[in-house]
């Protein structure tokens, strides 16, 4: 089969690999029909996540068709069209029993701090991912769902991570009616978080980024007010002015480890890997919310220390909430919102790239060329 393979920082290629075998009675092998590149993949691509091995296939957003099932699988049969949440999880451990699927304790021998994620380094369990023609899906009776007839394939794909995560991020903000919500980052996660904030009853939604074309999408798709932080000497002061010097009630970090806007912070983390992640957006969030406010962190950070302004978070009495998103837990309610027409996730898809050209896809998404917001990967296209 053809599969994307990591070759070292900023380098990927497509290789011929063996179709993965069933390794556990509850495994399924899925033939991938559509995949995507996530902002999280960029942290791997740039060499920031420890134990990212040359030869690994990335990709944790994918949908496909069941090709083969293990002997204990009851809920799926060959030929089913399925969507697979980005989390690998057992469904039965202490955490899964409480709905914390992203924190499963039975699937990641490499680390106890994080659950399992497809194609996301050995730190997240060492599973090959779905930017490929076939992928092994453990716990086939737990993770995957048959795609509802009425649901568009691209919308289903976006439910596997980006949409679910944005929606989850807005929920962790504990938004109350009329609240002012500031979303840092206008990538897929930030756009979906901004859009979801309205569902929770936000009074104002403000999106911050430095890419004008993404801010345009934030205005059109997410009905948000926007600021390009590169146009201001100090974005925090600007946000204070715009909120009557109170600050926002809620801030959502949808940027993560490679945040820009401070040369030293960005370069020491994203380029020289001396910090787990650049905390620029997180620190701005701490400064921007009002005392007693809430910060929801969806941005991903590495396991090493970061220079976070913790003192101010303490002094302001902030609530910090965060997690990897338990994607499938969001689906029933998300399906209702999509059906009602409140959400049309595929509106943010800008690129559909054949698997064979995935190296270009990574570069375009990473360098933010060609007004790229969400690139999909099509394994069958040549």
């Amino acid at each position, binding site marked *: 089969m053809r599969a994307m393979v990591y*070759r*070292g920082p*900023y380098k*990927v*290629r497509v290789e011929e690999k063996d179709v993965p075998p069933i*390794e*556990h009675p509850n495994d399924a092998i899925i033939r991938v029909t559509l995949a995507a590149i996530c902002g999280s993949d960029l942290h791997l691509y740039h*060499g920031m996540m*420890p*134990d990212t*091995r*040359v*030869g690994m*296939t990335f990709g944790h957003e994918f949908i496909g068709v069941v090709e083969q099932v293990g002997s204990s699988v*009851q809920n799926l049969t060959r030929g089913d069209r399925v969507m697979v949440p980005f989390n690998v*999880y*057992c*469904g*039965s451990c202490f955490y899964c029993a409480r*709905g*914390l*699927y992203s924190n499963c304790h*039975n*699937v*990641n*021998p490499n*680390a*106890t701090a994080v659950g*399992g994620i497809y194609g996301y380094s*050995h730190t997240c*369990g*060492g*599973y090959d991912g779905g930017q490929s023609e076939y992928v092994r899906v453990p716990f086939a*009776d*737990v993770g995957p769902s048959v795609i509802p007839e009425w649901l568009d394939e691209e919308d289903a794909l976006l439910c596997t991570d980006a949409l679910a995560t944005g929606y989850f991020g807005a*929920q962790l903000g504990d938004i109350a009616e009329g609240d002012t919500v500031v979303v840092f980052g206008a990538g897929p996660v930030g756009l979906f978080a901004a859009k979801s904030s*309205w569902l929770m*009853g936000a*009074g104002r939604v403000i999106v911050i980024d430095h*890419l004008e074309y993404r801010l345009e999408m934030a205005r059109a798709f997410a009905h948000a007010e926007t600021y390009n932080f590169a146009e201001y000497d100090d974005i925090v002061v600007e946000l204070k002015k*715009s909120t*009557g*010097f109170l*600050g926002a009630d809620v801030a959502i970090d949808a940027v993560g480890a490679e945040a820009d806007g401070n040369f030293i912070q960005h370069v020491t983390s994203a380029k020289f890997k001396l910090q787990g992640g650049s905390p620029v957006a997180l620190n701005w969030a701490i400064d921007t919310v009002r005392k007693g406010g809430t910060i929801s962190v969806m941005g991903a950070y590495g*396991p*090493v220390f970061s220079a976070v302004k913790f003192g101010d978070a303490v002094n302001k009495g902030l609530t910090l909430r965060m997690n990897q998103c338990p994607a499938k*837990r969001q689906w029933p*309610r998300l399906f209702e*919102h999509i059906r009602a027409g*409140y959400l049309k996730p595929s509106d943010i898809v800008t690129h559909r790239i054949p698997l064979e050209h*995935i*190296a*270009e*896809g990574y*570069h*375009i998404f990473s*360098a*933010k*060329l*060609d007004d790229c917001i969400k690139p999909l990967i099509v394994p069958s296209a040549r």
Partner: protein
Amino acid sequence: MPYRAEKPKLAPSSDELRARVPGWGADLDPKDRPAVPRERFDPGASGAHWDFPDRQEEKWPRERSLEHEFLTPVFGTSTPPKGLSGVMRKYSYARYSEGRAAHWLILLAADRVDAIESHLRSFLSLHPDNPVTETGIRSELTHHGISSRIGKKRADLSHLWIDPIIVAGPWVIAGWVVLSALRARGDSRHLISR
């Protein structure tokens, strides 16, 4: 206005918002939010029909965190450790817990070593690494590399120059290793023929 008791009135009214934004307030009631409350004890909800999962076969000694009591029943089988980077990785897992910076710093160092080892190994294979195709750099020409940046207020332009150094670094080191190996062989031949 935080200097007085009232909250500054900066948002439109809820009625205005409901009219303007599709779905506004659909999840106003926290009971409709699937992530609330954070923990909901319901072991039957996931579809799992086991108390503890069957154990997957361990085909090679699988490295694992010291903070785990035992090897998890299910695990990924991508890219087993190999070469010098593999030795570093196995040592890091065997010696340091996740709480120790050394654990992660050794793993990061192993990643850099892995890239160099893999480039070198690829030169001995039928599928050598190709920095042009693997970086996708050609898309700079086909996907508006210049107009995506020129005249734009983009914060990432200030550190664009660092990327080529990161990309070329392992190649320069790999090339240097190959060259010095060749030179060493040349020297020894020279010695023998003398």
